């Protein structure tokens, strides 16, 4: 990220520098061109000045010559004195101009020649006039009058005039080129400045954007750091980080609380001081091995091993801890997150005690229950043997009596014998049913898939004697499978169908409906008859032991059948109930939870 940013900046500044240097170079080059043209113009001007001076010098000398010739006054010759020297000087410079290509050679040669001629003419006339004689003066004047001097002078002027014209023309051209070059320079400078500025502006924007991004990232980083610090500071768990030498580099608030010491006292100190002495070697070994695994983190301690910490005041306490390792800048950092579990241990201990107490109590109760159960069983066994034996004797001997002395008994006697016999039989049935009911509470339930349809078929076979000499219309609907004890469930079905047959005895035909359906996770089975029914006010009594809603001379029975039904259904985790209206039949239901046996 940083490297990427710096390359970006380097290319950015490189670009700016390149554009700037190119701009400056262009402007400089344009400047050099202007300067060079100015130099050329200056040369031309010098050359022009020299030509004019040459012409003026010779003209002035001629004027001085004329004046002297006319007046013979030497005063007029004063200007002439420096003329030849000055003229030669100018001509010599003119040679330089030829070399510089400013003046053509033929023009120069002509000017040299004419100037020399003029100087010679001037000198000769002046020398004549200086002789002081009239003749010499006359001769000198005559020479002037023959116009030689004037002709030479005219030639000189004629030579210089076009030269001057050319010079001025050239100067004008150069000035124009200079102006053009100046404009180019200005435009270049402005364009360069504009490009550079644009580039700078772009770079500025880029940098500003970059800085903004960097600030955002820094802000985010700072927020993250604060968040992390907040979490580390506010967490319930103690967090301690140590370096490779096992010295503390981070110690959060919770750690301060747990170990009862201040962070400034432990920074840089060895972690050992928080570990009970007897565990220190083990701890080092564990950390070493953990380091070798390269795992990021794992719980500390193992299985049965209880971890402990030592507070600053020396108190030892149980902890739960995990350790993690990270590699930061070549340095390994171990972080231990731990929790004081003193309270939890206490609670666990209490729970264990409660559990033990509870178990103890359950055991006691179980023993009591087992004893009670055994007693009950013994009781049942005794009843079934000892109670039934005398009963059997009563009925058997009554039968023998009837056989033996029946013929001598009158009607009353015979009725007595019959009553004794029937009472004995009823008693025997009661005992049998009672024993069966008590057994229902004790036997272990077997679990199997039981077809209700099969149960109905079995019951109908068993109940066949009840259907002799009467019309019974069976309406058997859909019947599911249930899960439970086949023997006991058959008992339920026999009881319910038996009741339906019994209480519909007076109907012709008796209509008995059986069907089942699934509802709320239960199989609900229904048995409906069109018999005498019962008063719903007594519905509760119906399933009680020995509870009967009919007199024995109306419908025989012991009052145990429905009690058995309810007991069996309840033992299967279901329930049984009934609905009826007097004289309009009764409907009995039992519901069993849907439970699938694993085959």
């Amino acid at each position, binding site marked *: 990220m940083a490297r990427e940013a710096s390359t970006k900046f380097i290319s950015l500044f490189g670009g700016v520098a390149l554009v700037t240097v190119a701009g400056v170079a262009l402007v400089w080059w344009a400047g050099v061109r202007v300067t060079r043209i100015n130099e050329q113009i200056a040369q031309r001007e010098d050359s022009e000045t020299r030509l004019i001076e040459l012409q003026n010098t010779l003209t002035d000398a001629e004027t001085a010559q004329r004046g002297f010739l006319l007046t013979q006054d030497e005063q007029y010759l004063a200007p002439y004195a420096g003329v030849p020297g000055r003229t030669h000087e100018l001509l010599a410079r003119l040679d330089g101009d030829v070399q510089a290509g400013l003046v053509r050679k033929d023009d120069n040669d002509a000017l040299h020649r004419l100037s020399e001629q003029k100087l010679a003419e001037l000198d000769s006339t002046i020398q004549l006039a200086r002789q002081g004689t009239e003749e010499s003066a006359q001769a000198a004047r005559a020479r002037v009058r023959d116009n030689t001097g004037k002709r030479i002078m005219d030639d000189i002027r004629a030579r210089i005039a076009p030269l001057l014209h050319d010079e001025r023309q050239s100067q004008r051209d150069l000035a124009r080129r200079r102006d053009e070059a100046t404009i180019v320079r200005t435009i270049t400078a402005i364009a360069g400045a504009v490009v550079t500025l644009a580039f700078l502006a772009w770079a500025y924007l880029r940098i500003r954007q970059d800085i903004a991004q960097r600030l955002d990232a820094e802000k985010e980083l700072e927020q993250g750091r604060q968040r992390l610090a907040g979490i580390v500071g506010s967490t319930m768990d103690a967090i301690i980080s140590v370096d490779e030498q096992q010295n503390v580099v981070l110690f959060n608030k919770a750690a301060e609380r747990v170990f009862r010491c201040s962070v400034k006292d432990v920074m840089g100190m060895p972690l050992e001081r928080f570990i009970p002495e007897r565990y220190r070697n083990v701890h080092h070994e564990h950390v070493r091995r953990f380091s070798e695994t390269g795992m990021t983190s794992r719980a500390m301690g193992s299985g049965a091993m209880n971890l402990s910490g030592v507070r600053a005041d020396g108190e030892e306490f149980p902890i739960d801890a995990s350790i993690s390792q990270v590699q930061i800048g070549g340095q390994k950092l171990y972080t231990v997150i731990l929790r004081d579990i003193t309270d939890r241990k206490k609670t666990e201990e209490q729970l264990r005690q409660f559990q033990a107490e509870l178990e103890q109590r359950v055991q006691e109760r179980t023993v009591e229950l087992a004893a009670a159960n055994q007693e009950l069983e013994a009781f049942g*066994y005794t009843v*079934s*043997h*000892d109670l*039934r*034996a005398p*009963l*059997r*004797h009563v*009925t*058997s*001997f009554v*039968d*023998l009596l009837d056989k033996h002395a029946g013929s001598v008994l009158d009607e009353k006697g015979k009725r007595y014998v019959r009553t004794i016999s029937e009472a*004995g*039989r009823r008693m*025997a049935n009661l005992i*049998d049913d009672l*024993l069966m009911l008590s057994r229902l509470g004790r036997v272990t339930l077997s679990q199997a898939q039981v077809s209700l349809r099969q149960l109905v078929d079995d019951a109908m076979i068993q109940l066949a004697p009840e259907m002799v000499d009467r019309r019974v219309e069976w309406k058997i609907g859909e019947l599911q499978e249930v899960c439970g004890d086949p023997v006991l469930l058959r008992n339920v079905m026999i009881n319910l169908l038996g009741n339906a047959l019994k209480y519909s005895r007076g109907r012709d035909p008796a209509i008995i409906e059986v069907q089942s359906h699934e509802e709320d996770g239960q199989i609900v089975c229904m048995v409906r008859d069109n018999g005498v029914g019962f008063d719903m006010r007594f519905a509760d009594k119906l399933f009680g032991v020995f509870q009967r809603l009919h007199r024995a001379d109306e419908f025989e029975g012991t009052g145990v059948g429905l009690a058995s039904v309810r007991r069996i259904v309840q033992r299967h985790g279901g329930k049984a109930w009934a609905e009826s209206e007097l004289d309009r039949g009764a409907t009995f239901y039992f519901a069993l939870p849907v439970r699938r046996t694993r085959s």
Partner: protein
Amino acid sequence: MTTSIRRILLAEDDPNDVELTLTALTDHAMVNEVDVVNDGAEAMDYLFCRGKYAGRATGLPAVVLLDIKMPKVDGIEVLRQLKSDPQLRIVPVVMLTSSREERDLVESYQLGASAFVVKPVDFAAFVDAVKQVGVFWAVVNEPPPSRPIPANWAAHPRQ
């Protein structure tokens, strides 16, 4: 053993039941003589020819009718001892009981009882049960000794 019709042993402590059983047997023309013992210990003495039965020379009974609930030694115990004796174990035993307890039934059959009869309260039914058992074992069925003796019985030859 000279008697052609062998005896029946009835072990029953209740005199009423004894009388009823005997009546039933006589009523149904059971010709066998019935020896009655009144508790388990006496039954054992009879079977093993000891005590007051030491001089008994009537041989093995055709069938033993054994009540389960008896004083001193109960019927199940008598059955156990009888069936663990190499000579006596071939005697058919019919358990007579008032009980409908399944465990008695299961135990009796496990120990080798030939039949298990719940004494019905209904006398006619009782007579029927006794008659069937009696007729089957004492009259209709050939007594076991007259059968060809299997090889493993050779060690205990009977006279």
